[in-house]
Structures are given as structure tokens and as C-alpha cells.
């Protein structure tokens, strides 16, 4: 059962000058945790706004729960949960007031669906009388999630919920999402953080308004058609340039403690040759090992293709 379907959706701004979304098609299955992964400007927010019926597409069709996003917008608006890109709750109302307000807007009450948000709300409860504007980034995010869930939606749209939030809160947030998924809620999340991609069941990599790849994270990694290696030495700064200058390296990207490289020619001797070349260039403590690509490696490769 497909809960969300996009068919060649396009969106332009500024009278067609800016093509934000370019013939995007994908679907999300019922109960799936789906990630839309891409940097700022890739078109994620535009897609989310089209799916939540806040924007009209310039081309293509889309449906949510079987309802058309253009014609049946009223029905969709009654049944989805939405957390927009930046904190969009009332700063001068308290945590409890915000929650009560959104519950009543959806013709329900906090009591009715408390079981759904209990795990999350427990962390907010000590601050229930605090003005929402005075909460930390992580707390605001939890409150926004509660308000999006309070009416027990069947689908949740979360637009960059972890942006601007600290590392610890981010981890906690994804754990909350996993638990929600177990309740059968379909969740569509967007994020610019490549490392969060592996936490989703299926992902779509998006750049410049176009989908580059849609699959499970494992499959996307599996599709990385080359052998990837990690290289390090005592002089990382010059290592990057030296690698590029060897002539046998196809791609070379910095990845923190290691550089990730692919060879132009995939035979065994290349490894040894590389180490020799680097030793000649005075590199010491050279480490070269094969690694499994990460989503970021895949993303970079897809961008460059």
C-alpha cells in the first residue's frame, strides 16, 4: 500500500527562472520510515510543502493516502502530521498551552492520544509551563513533534527536524522516530546529514531538484560500482594533493581522519604502487585499507557522474 506517491512533480519559482524541483517521482509505503537526503537548496522543503498541500506543483501529480494534493487538500490537511523546517510553534505560549491548542485545532484532546506522545512528552513535562521560545533547540524539536502527533496522524511529514540541533538530541530524536514507526505511522523525513540516511528504511538522494537515487541505504551502497579505499598518513594536508598527483587515483575525497580514494585501474598492484609513491613523497605511517562506502561517498559519486 503506497501512502505517498509523487509522479513527475516539478516546481519553479520566480516565473520559471528557478527550477526547485525537477520531475521528481517516488513513493513511500505504508508504515515506512523514508528519508529524503540532500543539501540546502536541493528541493526538499518544496517537495514537503507540495505534499502537505501548502504549495501547488507546476507539473506532475501527487497523492497522500490516496487523495490528490491539489483537489483533495482539505482531506489531506485533516489527517497528516507536519513539522515544518524551522520551529513553528507559538513562542509566547507555554509547552502545555501549545500542545492543548494544537490538539483542539484537530478536534481532539491531549488526553485522548497521550499514549502516542508519552515517551517524548515525559522529557518536556518538567518544563510544561515554560514559554516555548525559552526552550533549548532539542526541547523545541520534541515539542514540535508532539504537536504534530497529537491527533494520531497516519502519516508524518518532518522537514529537516534535526537541523540546528545538537548531536545528542539528534540521536535521541531518531530513536523516537523508530519507536513511532513501530506504531505503524508512515514517516517521511528530510535531512541534509548524510549519516542519518542509514537510520531510514529507504532513502532518496536529491540534489538540485533531481532525484539521484532511490533505494534502501544498503542497496545504494551496494550500487557503488568501484572499490573504495581509505588512506591516511602522518601528513594529511599534503596527502590529499599528493594523491591527486599520482596519476593512478580516480577520485579522492577528504573524509575526516582518512581520505577515500578509488583507483583508475582496479588491480591488486595498484595498492602497493600507491604506497611506494607516497613513501617516495616522504609520507610516514601510511595506512591503506578497503572500506565499505558510506552514503556520503555514494552521494559525491552521484553528483560527479
Amino acid at each position: 500500500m503506497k501512502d505517498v506517491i509523487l509522479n513527475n512533480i516539478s516546481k519553479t519559482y520566480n516565473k520559471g527562472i528557478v527550477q526547485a524541483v525537477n520531475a521528481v517521482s517516488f513513493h513511500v509505503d505504508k508504515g515506512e520510515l523514508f528519508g529524503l537526503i540532500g543539501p540546502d537548496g536541493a528541493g526538499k522543503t518544496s517537495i514537503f510543502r507540495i505534499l502537505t498541500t501548502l504549495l501547488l506543483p507546476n507539473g506532475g501529480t501527487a497523492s497522500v493516502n490516496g487523495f490528490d494534493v491539489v483537489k483533495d487538500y482539505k482531506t489531506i490537511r485533516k489527517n497528516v502530521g507536519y513539522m515544518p523546517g524551522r520551529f513553528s510553534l507559538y513562542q509566547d505560549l507555554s509547552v502545555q498551552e501549545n500542545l492543548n491548542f494544537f490538539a483542539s485545532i484537530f478536534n481532539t484532546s491531549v488526553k485522548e492520544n497521550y499514549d502516542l506522545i508519552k515517551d517524548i512528552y515525559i522529557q518536556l513535562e518538567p518544563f510544561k509551563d515554560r514559554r516555548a521560545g525559552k526552550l533549548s533547540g532539542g526541547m523545541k524539536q520534541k515539542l514540535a513533534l508532539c504537536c504534530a502527533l497529537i491527533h494520531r496522524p497516519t502519516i508524518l511529514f518532518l522537514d529537516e527536524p534535526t537541523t540546528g540541533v545538537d548531536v545528542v538530541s539528534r540521536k535521541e530524536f531518531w530513536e523516537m522516530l523508530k519507536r513511532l514507526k513501530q506504531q505503524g505511522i508512515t514517516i517521511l523525513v528530510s535531512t541534509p546529514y548524510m549519516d542519518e540516511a542509514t537510520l531510514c528504511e529507504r532513502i532518496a538522494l536529491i540534489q538540485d531538484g533531481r532525484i539521484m537515487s532511490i533505494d534502501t541505504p544498503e542497496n545504494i551502497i551496494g550500487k557503488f560500482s568501484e572499490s573504495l579505499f581509505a588512506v591516511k598518513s602522518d601528513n594529511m594536508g599534503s596527502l590529499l594533493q599528493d594523491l591527486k598527483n599520482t596519476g593512478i587515483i580516480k577520485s579522492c575525497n577528504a573524509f575526516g581522519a582518512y581520505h577515500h580514494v578509488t583507483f583508475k585501474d582496479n588491480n591488486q598492484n595498484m595498492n602497493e604502487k600507491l604506497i611506494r609513491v607516497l613513501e617516495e613523497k616522504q609520507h610516514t605511517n601510511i595506512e591503506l585499507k578497503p572500506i565499505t562506502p558510506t552514503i556520503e561517498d555514494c552521494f559525491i559519486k552521484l553528483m560527479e557522474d
Partner: protein
Amino acid sequence: MNNTSTFIKKEFLHVFRDRKTLLMLFGLPIVQIILFGFALTNEITNAKIVVCDYAKDDASQQIIGKLQASQQFDIQRILLNHKQIETAFKDAEIKMAVVFPANFNSDLLHQHKAQVQLITDASDPNTATAISGYANQIVMDYQNELMQLQRVPYQINTEVRMLYNPELKAAVNFVPGVMSLILLLVCVLMTSVAIVKEKETGTMEVLLVSPFSPFLIIVSKAMPYLALSLINLTIILLLSVLVLGMPINGSILLLYAVSTLFIITALSLGLLISNRTASQQSAMLISLMGMLVPSILFTGFMFPLENMPYPLQLVSHIIPAKWYYIIVKSVMVKGLGFSAIWKETLVLLTMTMLLLVVNIKTFKIRLT
């Protein structure tokens, strides 16, 4: 409906938690009334004048005595020479000089004709006219007294009655005007920001993706300001009656009913602006410039509409404050009933209906 009342409650919370809004909402009217009441009065009191008396006779002394005794004038100096008059205007900030020629009394008695010169500072023509008018009145009073003693055969007495406002209180003119203006300004300003604020902070996005209808959003946003404006109105009326001595000659119920209508008109205007602007700043600018300035010009209490060229009079027809001003004057000052104001009320009602319909039809249900 439970969700509407929750929404209205939330709006009240927003207003009470924002000190600046509260200050504007209640402080503004109070300040305006007090300012207009005491400081910015058009009435003349204690105007500084000088007298140059060449006559120094009985008649001139009597007139000078009357001038001195009146509340309107405050004689600064008696000058000996008319050459000192110009200096007096420049240095002493006087508004008028009264000059009696030599032989004033004897001219009056023997030739039945005498002249008094009134020189006024007409850099403010309104004040100059008023002052010379008052001085003239005093001279006429003296003349009338003389004539009664002299038994002249033909006499025309003009008896003047000031209807509705016998004491010529300025409050009677400007309170209805200020009421129209303040209610309009406060309501439009407040609601013009109300919707835009939600758009700016992003909460509108979340509101739209919910079953709560746009119609209810509009109504819920207007409700608190309706209630608060009625309270404001009460404060203004109380201040006017108790502090400024303004009478309410007509039905208070009718006054409130019509005021409620006008408030709704103003709120609808504000919501219309709110719907079409993208930032709170532009909403406030448009409200102030687009609403306040035309209303001051075309309501009719600062500048009489009858004196304006016809095209501008036509323009005044679309200013809601103008109709409300007429209604308030009729009810509050003249003590008239509904039969006298039904036409103006109908105009207001039509305007309101139109604005509400436009509001609902053009409410942005999507982000652009």
C-alpha cells in the same frame, strides 16, 4: 465550538503577553483624549495681548477693562507708542495689539463713529481669526451697552443660540472625531499584524495543515480585538464625560451597537491588510499611512468636508470613519435616534459585509 474558543483564548493570551501591544491598545486612546482635551485645545484662553491707548478716556478705559476681565485675554503691557507694537510682537510673543486713537470717546459721542484697531499675528490664521473675533465681540458688547443708554430709534438685536453645545465646549467637536480615529487606528493596526505575524513566525504553515477552516481563523483573530475595543470605547466615553464634561444626549445602547459595527468594519480592514502583506513591518506601515492619514483628512472633524472640492468629497465617501463620525455626532451630541442615522448605518453595514466577503474569499490557503 471547542476549537474556536481555544483559538480565541490563544489570541487573548498573545495580546496580554505582549506588553507593547497592550500599551498601544489601551495607552493610545487615553493619551489621545487627554492630549486633545487639555493640551491641544483650539479654544482661546489667556492669549497675550498689548494695548496702545492714545485716548486714555472713559470709553477706552471701559473697553480695556472688559478685555482685562475676560478669560480669553491677558494684557501684557500698556504701550505708550504704536512704534513699540512691532517690537512687542517680536519680543513678547503677543498675539494681538489693540489700538485706541486719541479722541476715541469724543468721536464716539459727537460723531457717532469711532474706530478701534485690532492688529493680530496671522501667522496662525485660525488663532488670529478667533482672537480678533473675541475682541470684536467685546467691543460690540460695549457698543450695545452704550446704545441701550442712548435710545437709538432702530435697533437690530441678533440673538445667538448655540444648539447642542451652549457652552461651546471644544470637546463636543473632537470627541466624536477622536473616537472614530482611535477606534479605526487601533483596530486596523492590531489586526493587520495578527495574521502576518503567524506567517512570519511560521505558525501559519502548521495551522493551514489542519482541519481548522480559514473562515474560523479570521473570526477567531477578530474576536479578542472586538472585545478589547469595546472596553476601549467605554474608557474613552468615561473619560470624555467625567473629565472633559462631554454630554451624551442620545441612547447609549444605540451608540454601542453602532460602535460595534464600526469596530467590525475596522477589524475587517485590518485583516484584509494582514492577508496581503508578507511582513509585520509593511502591515503596520500600510495601516498607518493607508488608513490614518486619509482618515484624518476625510473624516470631517479636523477639516470640514463641505469646504473641500467636490472630487475629494467623493473620496470621503469610502472612508468608514467619516460615516461613523456622522453617526456618533448625531447620537451622542444631537441625541437623535436610529431613524436619523439609518442611511449612514446602512453604508457602514455594506462596507463591512463587503470587506468580510473579500477577506474570506481571498484568504491565502496556500503559501506562494
